[in-house]
């Protein structure tokens, strides 16, 4: 261990930590804020809300997105809802209960103080969003409606039809648009961030960008850099992430010294539409709510798998979740449902043309409730399913299969959301801090907005206050020369490889390795195989990738090529992390470590820590250095999850 990882969690009782900390933090007076330049990368929930809030406070903000508009970030695709401990239902919810559910849902691999703060500010988020005009679902009295979600026994989820992420992002985007109009925030759209720049003292001082329209690289400097660049789910190629989601900004920060924490933690969502053919470019999520009324089954006899569902009699069906988990049945948590689907398909019980799915059957619900009730509850999802598959789920069961959905790991941050690189802050899915080894439904939106609206605006002042009177490092400083030259060289190398295979070909290959050996279930042998295959693939990629056109124009192949290059490195660290963590927890299931019932077996004695990897050199599996931040639980008792 060579890094000093101080979580900077304030002392005192859990419930008072955040308030005390805010009082102890240094402030920047309103008239001084415009003297500070802050660079915000990403305009999803975390980035847009942070940039807007900092702009409102009077900081001088520059915000960067590779999209044409800030509104297109992938936060927009979240369907279900956002949790908040409002207790509007009078059903016993509280900040402490939301804190407890989130820690437990994360299988005791997150930091208590961060999670408690998340639960505390969840209350303010709903107020803020409602005031912005987010059209949350309402009851007839005009007050806000709630529903319940997995991992909770209270109804604390606020929602806007099936488009909660869209509406929350539009709220943040509109707040950002107001600041752009007022001139406190400058927007740089269609701009990729390809490197993070550190000054001579090792503090984050700027970024190197590539203008996606002209291909020109450029330098920006600031007093602090905020990364809100999302997760790394696209390392699998096929995922529910948008096509452009990538790891580049966080990986480049990692290469510059920021620790990457728990990269093996990935959430595989159980209800996605299975891949249909080799053209498949991404996977589509179907809301978890379907498991309330759908029954999951596969044919008992693999010979029946080619038959249509209606031709398979009741006694030839295996409702395996109901059989194995009688008390939770089809509503077991995401990780359990996903692993069991994989087991069934691996054992030859998969259905569909490619034998790669399990049935999610609504026939019983339609008989019991009538088609109109089912249509009212799930009509939009059924329509989406039919649009994608061409099959009518009112007449035949849906086919579903798990897919990569969210990444709990990310850059290591302290209580202030600052990485171990001073001045480099990391928000939302890009950091590791709040979800442990498994995220609960409706908590991603909560975390993105908590970080952006309420946490960062307070904590960044504590860092900036000491820099009052200093100017940002000038962009003609040698540190920028080095960084920009390195970026230009990387572009040139990819453009001049002039190989034989496309970027997508290599991305698919990488995704296949990571999915096969570091997907829903992992074991030592497979992970070691992946560690031998990834470096070879990466070497071939740099030698043989084919990127046509010009680096100085709008070139989407080059954009992808730069991103896949970083996934090729990140994947190796992810697998190494999975290999080192010799326990199962949440979304990280090591086949060697399971209970006799086949559930995740944690090893709290040896692995109750955050694995924060330090970049050591280009041979990632050899050179990366493990640093541990011990997780201390003072307010919850660790227990084994059971869903029998």
């Amino acid at each position, binding site marked *: 261990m060579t890094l000093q990882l101080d979580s900077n969690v304030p002392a005192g009782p859990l419930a008072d930590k955040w308030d005390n900390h805010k009082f102890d933090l240094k402030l920047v007076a309103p008239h001084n804020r415009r003297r500070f330049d802050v660079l915000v990368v990403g305009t999803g929930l975390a980035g847009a809300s942070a940039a807007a809030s900092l702009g409102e406070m009077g900081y001088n903000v520059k915000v960067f997105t590779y999209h044409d508009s800030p509104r297109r970030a992938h936060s927009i695709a979240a369907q279900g809802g956002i949790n908040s401990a409002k207790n509007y239902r009078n059903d016993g919810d509280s900040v402490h209960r939301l804190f407890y559910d989130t820690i437990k849902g994360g299988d005791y691999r997150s930091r208590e103080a961060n999670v408690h703060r998340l639960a505390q500010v969840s209350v303010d988020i709903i107020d803020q969003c409602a*005031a912005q005009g987010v059209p949350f679902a*309402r009851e007839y009295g005009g007050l806000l409606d709630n529903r319940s979600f997995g991992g909770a026994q209270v109804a604390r989820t606020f929602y806007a039809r099936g488009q909660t992420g869209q509406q929350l992002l539009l709220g943040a985007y509109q707040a950002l648009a107001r600041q752009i109009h007022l001139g406190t925030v400058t927007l740089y759209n269609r701009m990729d961030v390809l490197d993070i720049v550190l000054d001579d003292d090792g503090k984050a001082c700027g970024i190197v960008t590539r203008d996606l329209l002209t291909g020109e690289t450029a330098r920006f400097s600031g007093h602090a850099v905020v990364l809100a660049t999302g997760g790394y789910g696209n390392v699998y190629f096929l995922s529910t992430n948008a096509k452009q989601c990538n790891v580049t900004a966080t990986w480049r920060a990692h290469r510059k010294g920021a620790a990457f924490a728990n990269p093996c933690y990935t959430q595989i969502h159980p209800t996605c539409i299975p891949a249909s053919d080799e053209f498949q470019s991404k996977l589509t999520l179907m809301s978890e709510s379907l498991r309330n009324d759908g029954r999951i089954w596969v044919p008992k006899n693999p010979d029946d798998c080619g038959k249509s569902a209606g031709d398979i009699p009741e006694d030839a069906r295996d409702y395996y979740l109901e059989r194995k988990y009688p008390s939770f049945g089809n509503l077991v948590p995401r990780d359990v449902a996903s692993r069991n689907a994989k087991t069934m398909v691996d054992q030859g019980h998969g259905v569909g043309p490619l034998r790669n799915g399990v049935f999610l059957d609504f026939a019983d619900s339609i008989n019991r409730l009538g088609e109109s009730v089912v249509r009212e509850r799930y009509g939009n999802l059924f329509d989406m399913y039919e649009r994608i598959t061409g099959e009518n789920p009112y007449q035949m069961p849906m086919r579903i299969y798990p897919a990569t959905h969210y990444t709990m790991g990310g850059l290591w941050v302290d209580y202030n959301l600052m990485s171990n690189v001073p001045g480099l802050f990391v928000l939302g899915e890009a950091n590791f801090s709040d979800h442990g080894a498994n995220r609960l439904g409706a908590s991603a939106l909560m975390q993105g907005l908590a970080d952006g609206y309420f946490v960062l605006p307070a904590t960044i002042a504590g860092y900036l206050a000491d820099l009052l009177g200093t100017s940002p490092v000038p962009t003609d400083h040698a540190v920028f020369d080095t960084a920009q030259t390195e970026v230009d060289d990387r572009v040139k190398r990819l453009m001049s490889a002039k190989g034989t295979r496309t970027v997508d070909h290599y991305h698919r290959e990488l995704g296949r390795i990571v999915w096969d050996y570091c997907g829903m279930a992992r074991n030592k042998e497979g992970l070691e195989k992946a560690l031998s295959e990834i470096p070879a693939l990466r070497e071939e990629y740099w030698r043989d990738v084919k990127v046509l056109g010009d680096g100085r124009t709008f070139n989407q192949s080059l954009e992808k090529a730069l991103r896949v290059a970083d996934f090729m490195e990140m994947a190796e660290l992810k697998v190494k992390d999975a290999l080192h963590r010799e326990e199962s927890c949440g979304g990280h299931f090591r086949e060697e470590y399971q209970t006799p019932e086949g559930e995740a077996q944690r090893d709290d004695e040896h692995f109750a820590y955050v694995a924060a990897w330090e970049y050591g050199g280009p041979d990632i599996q050899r050179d990366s250095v493990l640093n541990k931040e011990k997780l201390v639980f003072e307010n919850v008792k660790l227990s084994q999850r059971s869903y029998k």
Partner: protein
Amino acid sequence: MSEMLNLTLKVWRQNGPDDGGRFEEYRTTVADDASFLEMLDYVNEQLVAEDREPIAFDHDCREGICGSCGLMINGQAHGPQRGTATCQLHMRKFHDGDHITIEPWRAGGFPLIRDLAVDRSAFDRIVEAGGYITVNTGAAPDANEIPVPKDVADAAMDAAACIGCGACVAACPNSAAQLFTSAKMQHLNLLPQGQAERWARSEAMVETMEEFFGSCTNHGECQEACPKEISIDFIAMMNRDYLKAKLTNRRRIGQRKVG
């Protein structure tokens, strides 16, 4: 089981804003369960294999919600399926042997970038002009202190469903952006939270829109093309608000009330 379709594509290719542009024809064979954009991915793989530059087109979420994608398919914005963005359109809506013409959004307000990608940042300018409610972070009252009647909240949500794809502009013979602007505006104008800035918002958004886009002559093509099926009723509501705004805002600056 999936069926293979043999297709002839006529695709608009243009190297950049200053290039003249032309159609190029490609033949391809894809499974009917591929999405439209997966079909284009596949054509791009073929093109790269032949050392020809791939077709540029915007896309991202491929779930019909981010609004990045948008193609004119056989003259229809987002293609033949109602209420469906290009990324959610699947090839089973086409037949073996079909000829498919693919063009970018063509509108003065959306300058072309390359091939099928256009610049829609004028939409951001319209929102920046007034498509928000002024409430600084931390200044909000408890969420339940502002009751919103359910039907009002539902109508606001209908408007707020807009994904900002630009199909309405592309489908309009005048390249007008009334459907987009009215959806963005009425989402906020309908809500109690949006009343304080209602008239200023209405004026600012309409006038910014007019800097970039044509005028509405009630063709209704926008509503037909909209992947979220947003109603042109919102345009009528916008026109009403704009008219009232002109009167109200004048009164506020001390001028005599007109009419």
